[in-house]
């Protein structure tokens, strides 16, 4: 691909970091000009507040209470209505959103770090390191996601909690990132600026972390956003298959699954509100990622906006 980021090999690391700091400011400026991304960010912050702050100010939690009537229509007491068993749906959606988000963040962060490092190392060293790491990826990749998930979920003695889910999804999530990063690095490492850095005596670690990974940022950023969406959606899907977070705790997937039958009758809001939350989170995260990607692309000039 292009080599516009070619770094003058005579510059020392210090010089490079100054350039980077300037770059981040530039990124921020560019990001905030991206309308959709800003809207996404604002909405996402609202979702965060809804999930993590609002519960402190709301009467009901996500549990069944004998004093809550069953299947009440939305009202001031229960803005999202109540479900069959007598659970305040607003309280449940807040809790579910929080749990699903926790899973998503941990998965995105963990699997991106693991995936980017392993992909970069494999692509940089090539040879037997690459072969070995990629075979490990292949082994995990070959085992269907569902086998890993079902088996680990089955091995958990008590009920499946959000961090179990995060761990399970992480085991699987880093594979695709590592393959994407490796592919980029394979082509980047042939570039002059990497050869130059090598010639200047940069250590392998230095080259990977300072040159290769930053230059695959656009792929990584797209991956992170895809990972969050992947985690949120996988969690819902696993709940649908009965392999997700278990009651008494709740998650968006569990709420949707529990309300499957009401999608087309007068209790439709029980089905669509958690579904809407899933879509909202996945959408806003993707908008943010899209804005970041565009903003971080160093080859992009502001003129084009």
């Amino acid at each position, binding site marked *: *691909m*292009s*080599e*516009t980021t070619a770094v003058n090999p005579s510059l020392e690391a210090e010089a490079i970091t100054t350039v980077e700091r300037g770059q981040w400011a530039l990124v921020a400026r560019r990001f905030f000009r991206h309308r*959709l991304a800003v809207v996404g960010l604002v909405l996402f912050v609202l979702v965060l507040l809804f999930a993590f702050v609002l519960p402190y100010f709301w009467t009901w939690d996500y549990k069944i209470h004998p004093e809550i009537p069953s299947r009440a229509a939305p009202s001031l007491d229960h803005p999202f209505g109540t479900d069959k068993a007598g659970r305040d749906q607003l309280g449940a959606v807040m809790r579910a959103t929080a749990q699903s988000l926790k899973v998503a963040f941990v998965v995105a962060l963990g699997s991106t770090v693991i995936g980017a490092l392993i992909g970069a190392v494999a692509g940089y060293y090539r040879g037997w390191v690459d*072969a070995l790491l990629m*075979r490990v990826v*292949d*082994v*995990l*990749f*070959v*085992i*269907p*996601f*569902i*086998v*890993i998930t*079902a*088996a*680990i979920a*089955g*091995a958990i003695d008590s009920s499946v909690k959000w961090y179990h889910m995060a761990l399970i999804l992480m085991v699987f999530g880093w594979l*695709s990132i590592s*393959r*994407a990063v490796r*592919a*980029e690095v*394979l*082509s980047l490492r042939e570039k002059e600026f990497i050869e130059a850095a090598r010639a200047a005596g940069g250590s392998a670690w230095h080259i990977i972390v300072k040159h290769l990974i930053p230059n695959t940022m*656009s*792929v990584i950023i*797209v991956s992170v956003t*895809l990972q969050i*969406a992947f985690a949120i*959606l996988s969690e*819902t*899907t696993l709940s*649908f*298959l009965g392999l997700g977070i278990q009651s008494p705790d709740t998650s968006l*997937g569990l709420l949707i699954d529990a309300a*499957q039958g009401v*999608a*087309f009758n007068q209790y439709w809001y029980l089905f669509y509100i958690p*579904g809407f939350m*899933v*879509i*909202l*989170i*996945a*959408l806003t995260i*993707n*908008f943010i990622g*899209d804005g970041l*990607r565009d903003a971080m*692309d160093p*080859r*992009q000039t502001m003129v*084009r*906006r």
Partner: protein
Amino acid sequence: MVVFIIRRVLVMIPVLIGATILSFLLVDLTNDPVQQQVFEIQQSTGEPVPQSTVDALEANLYYDRSIPERYWLWLTGIGDTNGDIGLLQGKWGPSIEGSATDIGQEITDRFAVTLRLVLFATIASIGLAILTGVISAVKQYSKLDYTLTFIGFLALAMPIFWLASLLKEAAVQTNDALGTNLFKTYGSGTTGFKGNGWELFVDALPYLIVPTIALMLGGYAAMSRYQRASMLEVMNSDYVRLARAKGVRNRTVMRRHALRTALIPVATFAPLGLATAMGGAIVTESIFGWRGLGAYSLKAIQDGDSFAVMAYLLISGVVVLTGILVSDLLYGVLDPRIRYE
């Protein structure tokens, strides 16, 4: 090239063995299917299950052996007593469903069903992804880009079972409104239908449409994002700008230079897309009542039917590994800078 392919095929073997060992452990350590079966029979007959039956069930399924022994038996069949196990001898091992279930036969039948769904959906989603990705990139920040981006985002943001349930209901409503049975919403073909290849295909078509759309929408969006990102990257690169500056026709630049390079990430992603589709098929099959591999594997895993899980693993493993190999070969074709040693 040929040497490269042979080497890669040989490398598949340890990968598959590694994967089978790992999953065999995962499945076997977490399940006690005979005990569950005994419980269920007791629930159904209302009488205790004779001890001789319990012992025989365990022996038939080789649960009287240790886990390493069971794996060894599964792989080689050396030391078995019933003559029904040993992958290297072409035997898949007994299923907990009893002697009437032949795992090999079951897997083959169901693979054909799933392949139909997954291939249709993957091809459709790759085509759609490349098309929308390229259009979005070429017309960056146009209304069309925003619209396509939004649709892509929306598809990406919807849980597949949510989408599938809604599509199913839409199909039912459409049938209702038209007074026909145009879209079938359960199964992969008419019950007990018999006929030649063409007749079977025509029979299966109305059953195929809705599930394919459901599965396709899940897969295409992610790929389309990758396509757009990489296309933009290439279009902003110097050599494309140079080509443009030299006065090469825009269309030619796009086809000869930009698209070719920009397809690399999608080529990486395509086999993963196939794997994702196989995974997604589990949900799609369960919603539309297909007797496919996905539904089978899910049941096998839940029931702890370890030899059936192994068979599923081998099939899906070979599909995935072949996909990866093909994608690696595609790199070479698409990016001449990558060499095969």
